[in-house]
């Protein structure tokens, strides 16, 4: 019958996936096979109504609704509060209207992972859905489009406008056509137009964006002052023809630092020049950094090479050792293999290092023991290891274990012990023997953590123990309706090979966040081997809350006071301006006493711009 055929035709055009057979009353239509079902069924005159939870099922799947009604005379189908799945998208719509020709969802929402589409209308046609007047939201972008089409894993849109901004449109993207490929989380734009503050930045023919990642707009220009100017570009993209916008393989660095300023001993001026290249499996960097340092009476000059090449399993590097002012280099062949719980990374390496030149070979990796869990308790352990063999020296073996014990989110304990036998010869295989213990406990409103760390370092030159480091750390925090408060203490002791103290330091820290206002105070205290104070500085910073959207700005002051000399050691001021898209930062830090502040004396100005 014609009327039945029409209802069938309407329903078969829906691409759903589930089963209506479980409903109390089921109406099946044979050709084509379509099913209407519901908790309640009523046939009265020309009107068929499924209510109390209804269902429509076509060849492709299932759509549910609060109610589905079909009038046999007017041949109209209507459903309310519709939901279901279309091409892998979770769909909801308050109303579905259908007639002999089409099936239309009004004000529909489609969700897939973190992406949401809202469309004024969705026209369903077989496995495809045509969307009109739509808005899309992904974790990093907002889009609008005049039209769109859903085809399985891909969503095509035309006349697209998009922005990575949280509000407003200071940075916007226009494109004639966009393809959202959800399978590989990529967005391909064609005939795009990238605009900032309404001004065209670029009109790339093709542009590829990562849907889950923010747009790659690293601000490459650098300007700063810290006893000499720093200026230039760092990782400036080189737009080679044929490369999609934002996915450039080549970057250029031209950066001068330390130019000008007062001539004090140790003042360094340098000029970095580098080209970075990364595409597919090849990563390369060719750089040179001519540098000169004032020794008090004349300049010492050198040129630091900065060369790196990786093409798995081969790696090559040429660098510079600042301590000995000599160049270093290595050629490494290494690959990683995994088999069950074991990971093995064999290597062969030829190195030119200040301590030695020569060959090394061996393997590193770890073995993960199976996790043990009983109720809220869980226990996991890992056994890392490294073996290095040298043709001109005895082998070096390093290994140990780390164990993690956890009781839900309430408590965790981590213990590590590593031991070394023999002596490492090169930086690649250099490992410390150490013991580490970390405890953490916390509930909703509070947390407490404590840590202990002891490590033994070896000299690459003679293989002897060169020093030992011991740290203790305690942190406490709690949170209530007013905000949060935290307290911390950390002590760091450096010993020589005989366990005689060389120097020590500790930091006491107290911080509070009250209604978005963040105040931090630190007391940095260091002493020498005979226990005399070498530094005692109180450092206070205040960070007011930043308005969430456009026009928000804040000034954040910081001040350091030297308790030993009784004067200010450093002072800073940072201005931060948020528009909807960008955070602009201009900072100044004056360091008046380098010993107390723990950083070089002078005036430092920094500027940065980043996408919010």
């Amino acid at each position, binding site marked *: *019958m014609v009327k039945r055929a029409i209802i069938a035709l309407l329903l078969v055009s829906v691409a759903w996936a589930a089963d209506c057979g479980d409903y*109390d009353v089921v109406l099946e*239509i044979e050709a084509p096979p379509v099913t209407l079902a519901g908790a309640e069924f009523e046939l009265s005159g020309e009107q068929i109504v499924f209510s109390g939870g209804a269902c429509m099922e076509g060849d492709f799947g299932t759509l549910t609704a609060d109610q589905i009604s079909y009038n046999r005379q007017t041949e109209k189908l209507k459903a309310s509060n519709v939901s279901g799945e279309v091409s892998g998208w979770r769909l909801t719509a308050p109303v579905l209207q259908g007639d002999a020709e089409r099936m239309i969802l009004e004000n529909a929402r489609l969700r897939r992972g973190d992406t949401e589409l809202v469309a004024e209308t969705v026209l369903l046609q077989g496995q495809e859905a045509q969307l009109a007047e739509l808005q899309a939201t992904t974790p990093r972008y907002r889009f609008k489009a005049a039209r769109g089409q859903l085809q399985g894993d891909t969503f095509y849109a035309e006349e697209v406008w998009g922005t990575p901004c949280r509000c407003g449109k200071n940075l916007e993207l226009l494109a004639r056509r966009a393809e959202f490929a959800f399978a590989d989380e990529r967005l391909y734009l064609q005939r795009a137009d990238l605009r900032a503050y309404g001004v065209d930045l670029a009109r790339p023919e093709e542009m590829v964006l990562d849907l889950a990642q923010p747009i790659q707009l690293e601000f490459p220009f650098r300007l700063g002052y810290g006893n000499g100017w720093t200026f230039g570009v760092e990782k400036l993209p080189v737009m080679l023809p044929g490369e999609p916008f934002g996915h450039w393989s080549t970057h250029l660095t031209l950066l001068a630092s330390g130019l000008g300023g007062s001539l004090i001993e140790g003042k360094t001026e340098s000029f970095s020049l580098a080209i970075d290249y990364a595409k597919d499996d090849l990563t390369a960097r060719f750089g040179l950094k001519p540098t000169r340092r004032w020794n008090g009476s004349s300049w010492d000059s050198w040129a630091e090479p900065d060369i790196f090449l990786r093409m798995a399993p081969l790696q090559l590097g040429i660098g510079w050792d600042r301590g000995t002012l000599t160049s270093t280099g290595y050629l490494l062949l290494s690959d990683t293999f995994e088999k069950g719980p074991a990971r093995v990374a064999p290597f062969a390496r030829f190195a030119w290092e200040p301590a030695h030149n020569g060959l090394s070979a061996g393997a590193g990796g770890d073995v993960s023991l199976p996790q043990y869990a009983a109720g809220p308790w869980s226990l996991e352990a890992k056994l890392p290891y490294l073996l290095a063999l040298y043709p001109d020296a005895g082998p070096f073996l390093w290994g140990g274990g780390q164990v993690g014990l956890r009781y839900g989110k309430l408590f965790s304990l981590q213990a590590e012990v590593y031991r070394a036998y023999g002596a490492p010869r090169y930086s690649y295989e250099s490992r410390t023997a150490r013991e580490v213990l970390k405890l953490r406990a916390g509930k909703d409103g509070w947390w407490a953590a404590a840590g202990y760390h002891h490590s033994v370092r070896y000299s690459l030159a003679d293989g002897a123990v060169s020093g030992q480091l011991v740290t203790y750390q305690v942190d406490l925090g709690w949170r209530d309706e007013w905000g949060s408060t935290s307290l911390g203490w950390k002590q760091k002791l450096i010993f020589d090979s005989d366990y005689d103290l060389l120097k020590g330091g500790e930091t006491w820290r107290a911080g509070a966040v009250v209604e978005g206002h963040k105040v931090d105070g630190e007391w940095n205290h260091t002493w020498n081997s005979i226990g005399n104070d070498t530094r005692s500085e109180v450092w206070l910073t205040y960070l007011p809350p930043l308005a969430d959207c456009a026009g928000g700005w804040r000034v954040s002051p910081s001040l350091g006071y030297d308790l030993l000399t009784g004067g200010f050691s450093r002072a800073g001021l940072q201005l931060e301006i948020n528009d909807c898209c960008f955070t602009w930062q201009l900072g100044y830090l004056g360091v008046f006493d380098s010993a107390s502040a723990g950083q070089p004396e002078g005036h430092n100005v920094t500027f940065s711009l980043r996408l919010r």
Partner: protein
Amino acid sequence: MKRILLLFATLLLAAEFAAISIEPYGDSVYDLASGVTTLPQGGVIHDNENDLSIDAAFIEYKEGEYIKAKEAKMDTETVHFAAAQLHYQPNAKEAQLTGGVSLDTEDIKELKAQNAWIFLEDEIVVLSGKVSAAKPNLSAARLVSAYQQGEVLLIAPYKYKDAKLGITLSGKNPQKPLYLQFDQETGEVTASSKVPPQVAKRLLSYLERAKEGQ
């Protein structure tokens, strides 16, 4: 649907003894003590008023109290009826057909059920046990009908198939019967899974009575 039920009713309404005569095929054994007549070779039960005859392979009856028949059947040009066992009690105005019932008429083809109860006074028929028919193409776990009012209650699992329209209506929740109402004049059907409470109470009570009677 209505007609099937009317036919059942007519057959058994006719069994009031005043309008009924019984002809034996062979022996007719009358027990003086109990007043029960047994026809071991069977016989024919005539409904004189409606001019219907039912053949049975075995008949036992007590005047004014009951008629029991085995392998009861009626074969005319237009009606084929069969029941394995028939038990009619004129005083209680109840008839019970058990062990398999089938009916075939011009309008109803291959109606089958395990059992049927007919409550003559209330004009209610209950069919139970693999209720099915080829025309109309339906099946149900049980069926209750107030045949004079044109009311039918299908108890799930039920299925109604209309080959011409190419549709099948089905339900499998035994707690959710389908209520059908046939308009006496136009024959138009109204159907609903929402059974009015008073209708449910009335019709479902016969299901209970039919169950108890088995």
